[in-house]
């Protein structure tokens, strides 16, 4: 399950003692809370009091509780990174069993803050039918080898559907779309990023330095559009929300979202011969060809924007230039969508191990809450869980 950061939105009755005196409550119940930050709400728009907890010794779970405003229920936002929860980093591709373990850890850490312990079913979306919990944000990714940088380079001229914004690019990474929008793509060398954040030893770049992460960040209507289907959505407060998913659905959503980028993948459609009067289309091809040249730092869309700025060309002219330019880029591209996002590519993608981080993360087996309803929500009926031949590294059998 190639899943990175996630956000769960839900509504719960929080123990009033936690809200009134968080420090004492945490100490009294020996909760594994790393930091707590109360906010009296004076500076916020609706003056709602909030309490933010970083839960779990190893990071990966952060909870924001808003003071009860719906009959004693609090709006709860849970930022949950299953990979960080289990391994201290997000370079691994999780197995379904590991993802379920991470959910179990989340439950055991957050159950003690609830007024009624049985309400844990509303901590995890999809566990309770017609529940109030849903996935509001998901990061999905694919790891591929890119030793010569051709894949990273191939995305330089990408254009999101219905977007005119140029890609933001750095030496080893790029972003398509803004953080504020409901879909954003991020493509970067994962091992290099992990070294920069001190999650990986630099010597590991020898083996893992070529790994490129193709990541998509989904929320709001885009999350529903790409991941939602009849089985995994429910209407909550009048809005369709994603409440559960199977592993293969994540891959399908990832593939579909990346497939919607223009100017990246090889098209088999032949380039039409241009008529003499089709001057703007010719300029489109010229701009595209220049953007692919190593002697320019500008992407195709950036060159188009420069043209607009310097000549004040009309939107019709720019549209003709863009359309033909993107067609040309697709014609000359070496990236094939069906190869990049094949079933094999998802199945055999490379995981990044980090001894540096993984050696420090241990969860008592008793702390990993288990319930068949969690499996029902996330395990496809025709898929068996892999047998465990050895304990995962994050298991700790007994108190020492």
């Amino acid at each position, binding site marked *: 399950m190639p899943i990175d950061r996630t956000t769960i939105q839900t509504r719960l009755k929080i123990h009033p003692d936690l809200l009134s005196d968080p420090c004492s409550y945490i100490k009294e119940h020996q909760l594994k809370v790393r*930091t707590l930050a109360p906010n009296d709400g004076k500076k916020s728009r609706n003056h709602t009091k909030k309490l933010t907890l970083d839960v779990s010794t190893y990071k990966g779970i952060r909870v924001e509780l808003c003071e009860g405003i719906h009959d004693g229920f609090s709006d709860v936002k849970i930022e949950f990174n299953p990979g960080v929860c289990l391994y201290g980093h997000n370079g691994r591709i999780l197995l379904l069993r590991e993802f379920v373990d991470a959910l179990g850890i989340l439950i055991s850490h957050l159950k003690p803050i609830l007024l009624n312990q049985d309400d844990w079913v509303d901590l995890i979306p999809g566990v309770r039918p017609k529940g109030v919990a849903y996935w509001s944000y998901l990061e999905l990714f694919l790891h591929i080898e890119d030793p010569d940088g051709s894949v990273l380079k191939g995305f330089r001229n990408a254009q999101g559907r219905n977007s005119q914004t140029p890609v933001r690019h750095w030496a080893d990474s790029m972003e398509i779309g803004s953080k504020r929008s409901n879909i954003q793509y991020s493509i970067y060398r994962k091992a290099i990023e992990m070294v920069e954040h001190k999650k990986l030893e630099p010597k590991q770049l020898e083996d893992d330095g070529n790994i490129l992460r193709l990541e998509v960040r989904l929320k709001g209507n885009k999350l529903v559009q790409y991941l939602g289907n009849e089985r995994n959505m429910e209407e909550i407060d009048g809005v369709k929300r994603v409440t559960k998913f199977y592993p293969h659905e994540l891959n399908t959503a990832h593939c579909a979202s990346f497939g919607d980028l223009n100017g990246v993948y090889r098209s088999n459609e032949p380039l039409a011969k241009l008529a003499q009067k089709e001057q703007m289309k010719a300029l489109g091809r*010229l701009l595209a060809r*220049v953007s692919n040249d190593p002697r320019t730092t500008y992407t195709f869309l950036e060159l188009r924007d420069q043209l607009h700025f310097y000549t004040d060309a009309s939107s019709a002219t720019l549209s003709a230039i863009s359309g033909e330019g993107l067609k040309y880029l697709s014609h000359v591209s070496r990236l094939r969508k069906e190869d990049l996002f094949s079933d094999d590519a998802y199945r055999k993608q490379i995981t990044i191990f980090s001894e540096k981080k993984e050696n420090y993360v241990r969860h008592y087996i008793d702390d990993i809450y288990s319930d068949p309803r969690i499996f029902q929500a996330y395990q496809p009926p025709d898929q068996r869980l892999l047998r465990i031949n050895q304990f995962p590294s994050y298991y700790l059998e007994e108190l020492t």
Partner: protein
Amino acid sequence: MNNTPAIVTHDPMMIRSLRITTKIRLHPDFIADHREFARRHHLAPEIDIFPVTDLRNDPNADFIHTTIEKTKASILLLRGAIRLFTMMDSEGDWVQSIELYPSLLLYGDEKHPYANGDLQQSLSILKEQVALLLADSLDSLHIVPGLAQGKDHVAVWSKVDCELLMPKIQIQCLHNLSHPLTGPAQGAKRNRIQLGDKKDDCLIRIKVAKKKIVGVDGAQSVQGARVRLILKGKALTLEFAQFGTIATREHEKFLVSFTESSIAQVHQSVMTEIQGTILPVPTEWRNQDRGKPLTTAKVLALLSQLTSIPLGELMTMDKEIRKPSVSTTKRLKKDVQIESSRLSPVPVSSLFHPDVYSAPISRGSSHPGKMDAEIARVYGMDRDVSNLLQV
């Protein structure tokens, strides 16, 4: 807080924020009940505290669930114009760093241009306000760097964030920017070019600016670019070395004082090292009456400036795509020469000449409150620096 806008007579320079690293203990009564403390000591009531409690396992404890509790807090004074960042230990709550927003403090606007004496005035207010919160009044010497005598420099400068507003500069005209301290610009957005990263010691950010400012002829709308420079760590010490006072502490160099005019000097000194070009839009291209706005000749001329592909090669590419006739090619060659002659790139560094950084503006009216004599002595003496400005 004085909200009288200053009179702008040139490109306005702003001090966005300053950061001090120090270690001074807060009064325990303030921590226990800051509102009561403020009332009792007649402090300005706008105090906000945002605590974060850190609960970590004690590795030395006998019991596995023994935790060490540490509270960090952000304390905002005077509507956030002064921010104290504190950490608690067994002896009390210690201010570890202070952020000061001089323009916000004096004018209620973080982006207000600074006037003569603003630095000393804002540091005086900072010292006055924070001194009231301390456990030991002698620690007031360690609020603002440079005031402690001898070698005991507890307080040092750790960040200077300043900005120059340059009217009439359009960032789309800036190309291929790079700087020795940061490397090339990367990750540009439509309204922003950035050199360096937040984690680097030097960050340069050039952003589209639209602002209403008060000029000699009254209020006017200004469109241009904000050129922001954030220096910290080694870059801060290096760039301020000739304009300020550097002290050594445990074999490491720190900036402990500087004059108001040195902020502009450092900004200019750093910016004159910026590489890249500014390519203005030719007047002829703005004039729509002179034919089609977009022609192949213009595009080829422009591309030869934006890339390092020679013009001849670009023309060959165009020929391969369009297959023009001989006469079209001949005409194009002539037109390209004309359009190329209209594009006049100049080095970006030339924008930052000394005239842009001329004398700070005069304040419309004086800010209430006395200037601290010691601060005026340490921060108020401007050297004759005209010969230090780079031309």
